C-alpha cells in the first residue's frame, strides 16, 4: 500500500482552498493534492501516493539507473 507512482503535472488549480493538480500517469489523468509539494510547477514529475504528491522527482537522477551502483562501489573501494 506504500506504492507511489510517478506522473507529470499538467495543470494546477485551487479547489476549495486546497492546491490541487492534474497529473498524467502515462495517459491516465487524475486529480492530485499538491499540499505536500508547494514547490511543484507544471511539467514537473511527481511521486504520487493515494492522490497525494509526496515529492517532485529529480530528473537528473533518472539517468543514473545502473550507474549509481558501479560509481558508488568504486568510490568506496568495493570489488564491483
Amino acid at each position, binding site marked *: *500500500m*506504500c*506504492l*507511489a507512482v*510517478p506522473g*507529470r503535472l499538467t495543470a494546477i488549480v485551487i479547489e*476549495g*482552498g*486546497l492546491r490541487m493538480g492534474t497529473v498524467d*500517469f*502515462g495517459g491516465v489523468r*487524475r486529480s492530485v*493534492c499538491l*499540499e*505536500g*509539494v*508547494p514547490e511543484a510547477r507544471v511539467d514537473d*514529475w511527481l*511521486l504520487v*501516493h*493515494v*492522490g*497525494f504528491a*509526496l*515529492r517532485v*522527482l*529529480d530528473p537528473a*537522477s*533518472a*539517468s*543514473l*539507473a*545502473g550507474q*549509481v*551502483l*558501479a560509481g*558508488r*562501489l568504486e568510490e*568506496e*573501494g*568495493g*570489488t*564491483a
Partner: protein
Amino acid sequence: MKFVDAYRDPDRVRAAAAALRRSVTRPWTLMEICGGQTHAILEHGLDELMGEDVTLLHGPGCPVCVTPLGVLDTAMALALLPDVILCSFGDMLRVPGSNGDLLLARARGADVRVVYAPLDAVRLAEREPDRQIVFLAVGFETTAPAVALAARTAQQRALKNFSLLVSHVRVPPALEAILSDPGCAVQAVLAAGHVCTVMGIREYEPLSARYRVPIVPTGFEPLDLVEGAALAVAQLESGRARVEIQYDRAVRPEGNAAARALIEQVFEVVDCEWRGIGVLPQSGLGLRASYHELDARRRFAPAVVPSARGSDACQAGAVLRGALRPDRCPAFGVRCTPEHPLGAPMVSSEGACAAYWRYRSLELGAP
C-alpha cells in the same frame, strides 16, 4: 514510463546482480521492510538472481496485515450501522476479521465503498450530508500525510458527518523490535523507500548505530532492489554500518517537510497494537486532541469492538517478523489460500504469503 522503465531494464538488473554476486565473500542475511518490495523481489526472481549467499527475509511492512482484529471488527460493526458509509482502500475489503470481511458486510447490506484517495471520502461527505462517512485509515508514514490532509480539510469545512477510524503505524519502532530480539538474524535492512520520502532518514541513524546494521532506504523497482542489496552488502563486507540512501531520486535525508508538518499537525505518536505481533510502544499515530471530534471511536463508542485473539493456525506474527518464510508455514496452500485465508498476509496485495502464493506456488507444488 519515465522514472520506471530504466529501473526495470533486464540487462541492467542482471549486470547489477552479477556485480553483487562478485562482491560477496560470505553469506549475508538482509531484510526488506516493505511488502511492495517483497512482491517485486518474488515477481522478478531477485532473490534467486542475487545468489545463494544473499538471503532476503521479509519484513513487517504490510499495513493491511498488521491492522489489529479489533479495528477490522469495529469497521465491520460501523459499516453495518444504518446511516453509515464505510470507506477504505481496496486492500482492506478482503482482510479477515473475527467474523468475515468487509465484502461480507457489504453482502449483508452494509454500504462499503473503496476510495482511491482519503480526500475522496471528504468529498463524499459533502455530497451525502444525511449519511455518516467513516474512513478506515490504515497505513504507514507514507499514507499519513494524505490522511492528515483529509482530516484537516474536513475540520476546516466543518463537516459533521465525516470521521476517521485510524490504525496508522510507524516503521522505526517495529524495526527496533525486530533488531533488538536476541535471535534476530537480520544483518542489514533495506528500508521502505516511500516511508523515507516522507520521514527522511534521521530516525534510522540511531538504530543503525545501536544495532550495528547497515540501513539502506531502497526503491521498489528491480534495479533499485538489487542496488540496495549491493550497497548493504558492500557495507557488511567492509564492516561498516550506517544509513545510506539508494532511492535518491525520491528520498532526501530530511524527508518532506510539508508532509511531515501535516502529520505533526493532526497526529501524535501513540502505543499501538500490531496484529500477530502485539503492542509496540510509540509505534502508531493517533488523532491529536484537537481532532478528537473526527475520531470514529468516540463518535460511535458503543460499536467499538476490542481485539480478540486471532486464529491459532495463522502464524502471521512470525511471518511479519521475518522468522518464518510463508511457504514453510504448515497451513500455507493447505488450510490457508487466497480464497480461504487464515490471516491477512495471504490476501493483502503486500502480504508476504500472497507473494509466495502468486509467484512461487507452482514450483512449491501447492494445490
